[in-house]
């Protein structure tokens, strides 16, 4: 870690990055932003914004189960419950008996309610409220290591799965006819989303995680024409907002997660206007 810190000191000779916790937070964002920026592109393509929101809410139940089991660190429970939730929602959705948003809404509310019931026993929910907005300044080098491993795994997944996922988002039958194992591809993707959402929640918060996943891709979609532009712009927006958000949150002494989301909101507004203008000029 010391080598990395030394490099950061050389590259960023600013007051705010003298503190180790700020260096850690910066590194965390350099890892979380590309994770969410990449996965967000397909989450938006496959209209999964509501699904990932439900996943975020289900983190509460994961934490609660961890607490019930007397675990010091509830992360394993959160990830396991997130994966379970993702798989169950997608299976119920595939069975096609109710509309997708109804299915997701039912699971989302139940998972959140169950978590809140368990965690609020004896009026003790305040202890867990930090999960709602997250605290990126509390991240440790060990947590950074876990995020780095996850980023490496997601990059590999993104190299192997991107083409079949892209085809599936156009038409699953067509993807199947080209040899894609559609169900496995979709399953691997939602499990990746579940893992990344759960690993990031502690740092960016249950209330903000979905915005960080969806907004960079949604903004990129407004202006991108090709798959490459889409991916690279989503990554760029995610990284830019993450870094600027961290700096502003330090300067103004506010929480980083919501600050990043506000910046992403501005980026979305600007790209939306660009899209609207180009439509008008094409029509004229």
């Amino acid at each position, binding site marked *: 870690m010391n080598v990395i810190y030394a490099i950061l000191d050389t590259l960023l000779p600013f007051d705010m990055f003298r503190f180790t916790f700020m260096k850690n937070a910066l590194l965390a964002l350099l890892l979380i932003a590309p994770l969410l920026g990449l996965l967000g592109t397909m989450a938006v*393509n496959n*209209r999964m914004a509501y699904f990932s929101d439900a996943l975020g809410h289900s983190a509460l139940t994961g934490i609660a189960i961890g607490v019930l089991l007397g675990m010091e660190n509830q992360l394993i429970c959160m990830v396991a419950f997130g994966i379970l939730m993702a798989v169950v929602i997608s299976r119920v959705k595939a*069975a*096609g*008996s109710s509309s997708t948003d109804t299915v997701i809404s039912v699971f989302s509310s139940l998972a959140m309610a169950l978590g809140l019931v368990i965690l609020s026993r004896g009026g003790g929910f305040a202890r867990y409220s930090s999960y709602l907005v997250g605290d990126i300044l509390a991240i440790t080098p060990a947590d950074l290591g876990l995020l780095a491993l996850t980023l490496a795994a997601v990059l590999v997944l*993104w*190299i192997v799965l*991107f*083409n*079949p996922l*892209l*085809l599936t*988002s*156009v*038409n*699953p*039958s*067509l993807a*199947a*006819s*080209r040899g894609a194992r*559609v169900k496995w591809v979709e399953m691997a993707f939602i499990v990746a989303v579940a893992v990344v959402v759960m690993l990031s929640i502690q740092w960016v918060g249950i209330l903000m995680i979905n915005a960080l996943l969806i907004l960079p891709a949604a903004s*990129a*979609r407004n202006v*991108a*024409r*090709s*798959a*490459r*532009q*889409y*991916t*690279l712009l989503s990554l760029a927006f995610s990284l830019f907002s993450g870094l600027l958000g961290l700096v502003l949150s330090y300067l103004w002494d506010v929480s980083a997660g919501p600050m990043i989301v506000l910046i992403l909101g501005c980026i979305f507004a600007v790209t939306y206007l660009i899209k609207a203008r180009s439509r008008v000029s094409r029509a004229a």
Partner: protein
Amino acid sequence: MIRCSLSHVQLEHFTVRRGRDVLVEDVSLSLCCGQLTALIGSNGAGKTTLIRALLGEIPYQGRLSYLDHEGKPMRRPRIGYVPQQLDFDRSIPMTVTDFLLAARTRTPVWLARPASAARQVQALLNQMDVGELGGRKLGELSGGELQRVLLALALDPMPDLLILDEPVSGVDIRGLDMFYQRLDELRQAHHLTILLVTHDMAMVRRYADQVALIRRRLLALGPADEVFNHPAYRSVFEGAQA
């Protein structure tokens, strides 16, 4: 004459269920090399379900075999598929070239674009007279342009079985005629086995070698004239089709 590697596709007691519902029941039929089989039936008769099961997308019961000319099962038959008028999110940022490359190569299209693969994709588009579409956004194509891109993709590599699910809905009459003529040329040139789902009975009469009428079960099977005069045909299409 080109001799195809596939002799016929055999469906025996082919059944597809979803939960307690039986969507396709006990269908047995054979699709022969060089022949166009038209799959007809009313909406909801199970045509698209049958195709999705053939593509391996949903599970089925019964037997599905791809046999070569010696009657031995083929290990990996190539299937080309042109879906029903694509109902996809047209705002997905993806060019026609992205789309074709994603279907043909393993190199992720967001990362790199190998020059040789890009040239092959261009050649494919040229073959279908849509060479200028490569840089256009897939969602901005007209119905006819999209169908030609999809047919170009389905024919690369040349498939053993070509499945077309109402491939020309939303295409104008001239485009329709061109599409079927091109299909017929390809069938003769490459001895393609074609399964076509359509509601266009005039085209069925003109181009199909065999017609399968289904309403969950197989109601009639044979040459077009025979099936069109079958009592089941009248009961299915009474007043709906000429």
